[in-house]
């Protein structure tokens, strides 16, 4: 399974499915990370984590650990 954390900086992809559960999953959905949403990984923080993605016209910071629940194409 390829996840959001595996997408390289500068690449775009589309969300296939949101795994995980509870508050984190709902929060990611509320922020617009749902099935079929395309996004671009803009950059990675100086210490290697978290990453910054551009989704639905805004910038979102997400740790690689949490990005692992987002399955992408």
């Amino acid at each position: 399974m390829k996840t959001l954390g595996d997408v390289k900086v500068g690449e775009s992809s589309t969300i296939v499915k949101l795994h995980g559960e509870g508050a984190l999953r709902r929060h990611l959905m509320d922020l617009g990370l749902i099935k079929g949403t395309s996004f671009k990984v803009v950059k990675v923080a100086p210490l290697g984590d978290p990453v910054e993605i551009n989704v639905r016209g805004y910038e979102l910071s997400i740790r690689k650990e949490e990005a692992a629940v987002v399955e992408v194409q």
Partner: protein
Amino acid sequence: MADSQIHVALAGNPNCGKTTLFNLITGANGYVGNWPGVTVEKKEAKLLSDKNVTITDLPGIYSLSPYSPEEQCSRDYLMSGEPDVVVQVVDATNLERNLYLALQVIETGLPVVVALNMADLVEKNGDKIDTDKLSKKLGCPVMMISALKNKGITELFEQVKKSAASKGQVPEHKFDSSIEDVLDHIENNLPASVPANKRRYYAVKLFERDADACKLINLTKEKAARVEQLVAQCEQDCDDDAESIITGERYGVIAHIIDECLTKAPAKMSTSEKIDRVVTNRILGLPIFVVIMFCVYYIAVSTLGGTVTDFTNDQLFGTDGWYVLGQGRDAYDAAVEAAGDAADSVDPAQYGPYVPGITTVVHDALVAGGTEDGGLVDSLVCDGIVGGLGAIFGFVPQMFLLFVMLSFLEDCGYMARVAFIMDRVFRRFGLSGKSFIPMLVSSGCGVPGVMATKTIENEKDRRMTVMTTTFIPCGAKLPIIALLMGSIIGDSSTTAAWISPLFYFLGVFAVIASGLMLKKTKLFAGRPTPFVMELPAYHFPAIRSWALHVWERCWAFIKKAGTVIFASTVVVWFLSNFGSYNGSFGFLPAMDGIPEEFMDYSVLAMLGNLVAWIFAPLGFSTWQATALTVSGLVAKENVVATAGSLLSVADAAETDPSLWTAFAGMFPTMGACVAFGAFNLLCAPCFAAMGTIRNQMDSGKWTAIAIGYECAFAWVIGLFINQFYNLLVLGQFGIWTVVAIVLLVAMLFQIFRPMPKHAWTDEDETNTASAAVSA
């Protein structure tokens, strides 16, 4: 509803300009309180242009889900029946995500007015929004405004008053027909007591299996089963869970609305992206951050702020006095030098427009009014009150400058990037990058630092940040560090420069070690908090909000200083000036035959002796050292001044070599001296900060845990320093050496052992597990 009174709720995403709007329309004179039971801030104020309109500023949220306290408070308030109308503030430059909350608010059935904020930026970007069409699609009025530029606000509130008189709307937007069918069925199963305009809201909530809403509606067993069956069928058909289906439908509706109402100019790289290319750059990000922080502290503490603070301390409040615009200062200094030993007889007023210091003025006025020179009243007022207040207000200029810069960095969006850059570091000990901001603020003053923790959503993270943030040396601890340096090394200028940062590292070490240790205790066990954060676009902050931010922080300090610290300064003065000598109790300096060191007979000395045994293992058991620690608990600003008066060094400053010698004389060894410093820098902060901790924790138990932990940690570190100094340098070994070694091993074990298993089972998981079992 009384025809004149209108309650307006302000709702919106974080960073949509809601607070700017609130400050603008209410004149920022809001009443700030907490929502009952949680530490989410609630702001309420009257509209400036119409006192019959009360505005409630809801916390910035992304959704009305039941998962975070902010979201829960917001929806509880919206459904409470109090608000007559909701102003939904929408960042027009990011319609897509902002409309997601707007749709949910519209579904509550309350009258809604959508305020498209940042209209000026939309225009600047060349985008066009068709507000009439948007209004039709959403089924509620839509107004273009700019809170920053004060545009469209009057029109907005005319509309708000009109809408408040209406009954509210049934939402216009429709989901996919298969979902709508299910929602219709659920609506039909709702009890008749649910009013027409709220039926859709509850139907959607029941579809989502929202626990709070289910409890509130309390369907009969039969109906609940019917609804569950409908939802389960729908989930099977869509091959997705109910929450995902609804979220997907909402974003689907939004995509459709945006297609019709928004014409976007061809995309070009925004200013924000250009700035971020540099400041959060993989290679340059960290160095730039270090440089920015260095500049902030260099300006606030070392150069500008330091000068102003010295002026306030020595000249404005002290006995030095000052020259208007410095005229005559050089001539006076030359005259003092020429006079040599007779310097006291040089009259400063001869050399320019001289203004005497407040202490001098008050002292002269008292003596002229018939008060005894050096007597009870003179001493209380000049040494106790004016001296105490001066020491505290001296920090205001430094703090003001620090907060001007930190608040700017926060309001313009840079601090969110700092959290992004630093998150990796803080995650290692279970915190997130968000904990870094309170710690930065704490380096100025712990009071606003502890207050800054309120932006941390997760309760455990917030508590741990509150507990550890005051380990960072605040401005008031710097003179203690300087005094220690002088005492240990004797001469500050050359060698001491590298030691003072050591105490900063000690503070940072205390934060890290505490984080690692506490995270493994039952109190803080749990999964690391997710760090999913929006990085808002950079913008120049609204001057009004920025100023308000600075003011709130400085005011928090001044208020505490004027009340708690002031009162305690007076108490300390009484304790150290009153006592019994030769069998009679009274004002010591006025007693017959009292020796110069009258404080040896004071109440403070008696109290100091009572608790001195606690500090014996740390090497300092004289009552003076204990009394200094006590005065440090009141306010760290007091320590140097108290040291001066306890050791009978007049006009003591931390840079005075005679104070260094006297201070060093209090301790048997250098190890004890350093242990004293470490204990005072790490133990519970001042009264004011403790009061703020009490407010933030909102629990007596947690306040006690926080302060108890800080003191215990400080004591242990002090013990290490003294005992290991004795062992390694002096070759002494005793029972306390054994205790120190045992504690050190225990501490290292707690820091380095792997995360225990139980730590990962947090409440959420336990709940889901038990739910699964019962199902």
